[in-house]
């Protein structure tokens, strides 16, 4: 088990390294002179040079690449007075350099000068809450509808659920987001009390920053529709597949009643494919729901990345890509471990 985990961690590091490399070279070719973005009419030569020195833009691309990876790495080497992250602990000194252990440094925004990490962490909270709400909604109802559909296979309930969920799979989230925002926020806004747009926190002129949980309803619903539909169909198919297995006949022959057969024996086998789908969706929602966040003006990874693209804020774009890659790798890692808990057959072959 420990070997299995170590192997997965090694893979994860390799993937993150590759993503970071691709991101660096991609952007160094598409923006050969990033300092141009920062220059305004009032910038003088001295300021420009200072900026270049700070970002190591005066050095060859190869060294910029090494510096970029060094900043990202948890264990990194810096000259003694140039450690980028204030909270770090020194492992050991080597001449004028020191090897430190720190959190990854994602540099500062070109636009605001704030650390990228602070901006991402701020936005991630919004995304996390939204993704969790959408997935909890989609999983609970998806499992319920899926089991219901399989138990009532061939009935009007089953056919109706199949029809509605097929519709749900086909509707893109930006479309349903606009429709929901328009109907529930605008047309019936007075009656539902919901806003057309809004974030997790609202800035009130008198009370300051306030939690606005009701704002989550519409974006979470819009985001959850597709996973809900897919989980419904997947649960239905996995349940029907499990119910056709020989061990279900064994369970019936033991004298178990229908409820026990469905929920204890069939559902247990059906959960595995469903979990794969749930985790995949969760990971992609954590990466930011670009359209839905934009449409509802929900502050999250998706909306700040779009904003950074509009303003060519390179550190934010690069940082968010690496961060999104990290989320995917992390979720997959957790799911791999969960599999071995859910299905004992995987434990041996790992």
């Amino acid at each position, binding site marked *: 088990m420990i070997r299995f985990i170590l192997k997965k961690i090694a893979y994860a590091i390799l993937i993150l390294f590759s993503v970071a490399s691709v991101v660096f070279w991609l952007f160094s070719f598409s923006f050969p002179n990033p300092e141009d973005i920062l220059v305004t009419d009032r910038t003088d030569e001295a300021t420009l040079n200072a900026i270049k020195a700070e970002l190591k833009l005066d050095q060859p691309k190869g060294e910029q690449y090494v510096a970029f990876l060094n900043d990202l790495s948890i264990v990194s080497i810096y000259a003694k007075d140039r450690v980028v992250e204030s909270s770090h602990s020194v492992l050991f000194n080597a001449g004028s350099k020191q090897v430190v252990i720190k959190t990854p440094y994602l540099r500062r925004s070109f636009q605001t000068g704030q650390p990228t990490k602070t901006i991402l962490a701020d936005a991630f909270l919004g995304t996390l809450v939204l993704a969790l709400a959408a997935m909890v909604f989609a999983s609970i109802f998806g499992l319920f509808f899926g089991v219901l559909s399989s138990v009532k296979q061939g009935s009007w309930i089953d056919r109706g659920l199949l029809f509605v969920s097929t519709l749900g799979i086909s509707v893109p989230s930006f479309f349903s987001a606009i429709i929901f925002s328009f109907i529930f926020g605008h047309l019936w806004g007075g009656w539902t009390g919901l806003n057309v747009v809004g974030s997790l926190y609202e800035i009130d002129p008198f009370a300051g920053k306030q939690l606005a949980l009701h704002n989550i309803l519409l974006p979470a619903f819009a985001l959850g529709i597709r996973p809900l539909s897919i989980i419904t169909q997947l649960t239905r198919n996995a349940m029907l597949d499990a119910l056709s297995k020989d061990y279900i006949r*064994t369970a019936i022959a*033991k*004298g*178990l009643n229908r409820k026990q057969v469905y929920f204890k024996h069939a559902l247990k086998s059906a959960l595995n494919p469903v979990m794969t789908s749930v985790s995949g969706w969760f990971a992609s929602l954590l990466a930011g729901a670009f359209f839905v966040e934009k449409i509802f003006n929900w502050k999250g990874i998706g909306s700040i990345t779009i904003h950074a693209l509009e303003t060519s804020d390179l550190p934010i774009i690069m940082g968010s890509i690496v961060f999104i890659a990290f989320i995917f790798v992390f979720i997959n890692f957790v799911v791999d471990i969960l599999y071995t808990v*859910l299905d004992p057959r995987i434990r*041996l072959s790992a």
Partner: protein
Amino acid sequence: MQDLLNIQNLDISFPSDNGPEQVVKGFNLTLQPGQIIGIVGESGSGKSVSVLSLTRLISNAICRADNMSFTSEKGIELDLLNSDDADLETIRGNEISYIFQEPMTALHPLFTCGQQVVEAIVQHQSINKTKAKKKALDLLIEMQLPEPERLYKRYPHQLSGGQRQRVMIAIALANNPSILIADEPTTALDSVLQKALTQHMVESCKKRNTGLVLISHDLQLVKDFTDEIIVMYKGDIIETGSTAQVVNNPQSVYTKSLLQCQPKFTNRSTVLPTIHELADYVDGEFVAKPFNNHSFTFQKIDDAAYIEVQNISKSFPNGKTVTKALTDVSFDIHKGETLGLIGESGCGKSTLSKIIIQLLEADSGRITFQGKPANSDRKAFAKKVQMIFQDPYASLNPAMKVGDIISEPIRVHKLAQGKQAIKEKVHALLIEVGLREKDYAKYPHEFSGGQRQRVSIARALAVEPDLIICDESVSALDISVQAQILNLFNQLKVNRQLTYLFISHDLNVVSYICDRIVVMQEGKVVELSDTESLVENPKEAYTKKLLQA
């Protein structure tokens, strides 16, 4: 004594597009406590359907009967035909238990063996968890499972087929049922295990005074254990009687034919009769017809070795340890002979066959082909050595037409040019293996098991090989179909001067068809000699054990 089961004139049908399709007609069965009744028949005879529908385990079956009642020893009476689901749930697994054919799929893969036994106990007995656990463990011990405490916490996939079936018996007997119904309980296991496991099951039932219904396609197995035998064919009961009477003095033509189809040492190199050559089925009755006994005349066997297997060893890493699959295995195959390779499952037979056809590489040792290393020209070797696999359902691509399956090797090895020539060649092959030209455009699922195996044979013959390796090629077939396929193998051997390496766990089949036999145990060759001396005068203890099974 009071009958546990009393079934009179049971008809079963399934709904289909052309109205209900009748699969069982006029089935009768009475069973008393401690009695053992065998039901024998080929696939499609309705033997399983008739007993599985007793507790409505087949949901879409429509049953009709004059009487179908169950009376437990405690005096609980139940009309099985008209009782509701709740009543049946109290009977299933409690008074009437089942053991199914496939130990590999009959246990839930995500629960431990112990949990599955406990579940059966607590479902019908009101006792606490600790006591149920203790009981489950006692059952595992009674089933003679190795290391019962450890096995209790293990999952089904970590057990062998025989062990899984023992867990299944433990589940079935957990509530000391009045009736145990065993549907082909040992068919998926090899012959040494078959007998031991059936013996154990019978003893466990006797101890509990449980009535046992043993269903099998194998009359030879059933006759050793049962008091009474019911023979079925296409939903009809053909013959009922005491075991001694049915086996020694069968009344029906069908039962007689079934006994004659059996390949064995004493009728080797004769043409096996098949049921339809021995009898005609007219209006639900078999009418005997004359069968002309005749033998095959085979060509002389070459003295020089065609393939030499020299000191082959192979091991597989298994976690931290290494499992030795083969240790220093050597033998020759001569052109024109049928060499048998026999041993229990896990003895390394299949690994060896994969090494011979170069699907696996040996750790040491070598295979020579006509004096040269076999791996020097792989394509030439693949053209001369072909393989037919065990499972005709899994070894044919379901998305390909039979014609395409057979013509693929012809195209790969460029044995015929042009569409027309290839098609003609495939037609000829289909006729040769006993299929029809129009089967060219059909898909594998449209064929029965025996017909699929004919397709596999045609596919192997397409490259005109010298040697065919048959890996358990007749194990999954009914006795009459098995006779047909064995005849086909022998006929092809005469017509095409073929050589066979015949791998099987069934000594009856091997001693019928083979000239020489290699006995393997735990990856080693135990004994190698010609069939006569091996059967009549076995030298090794292991061979004797195999012969007794």
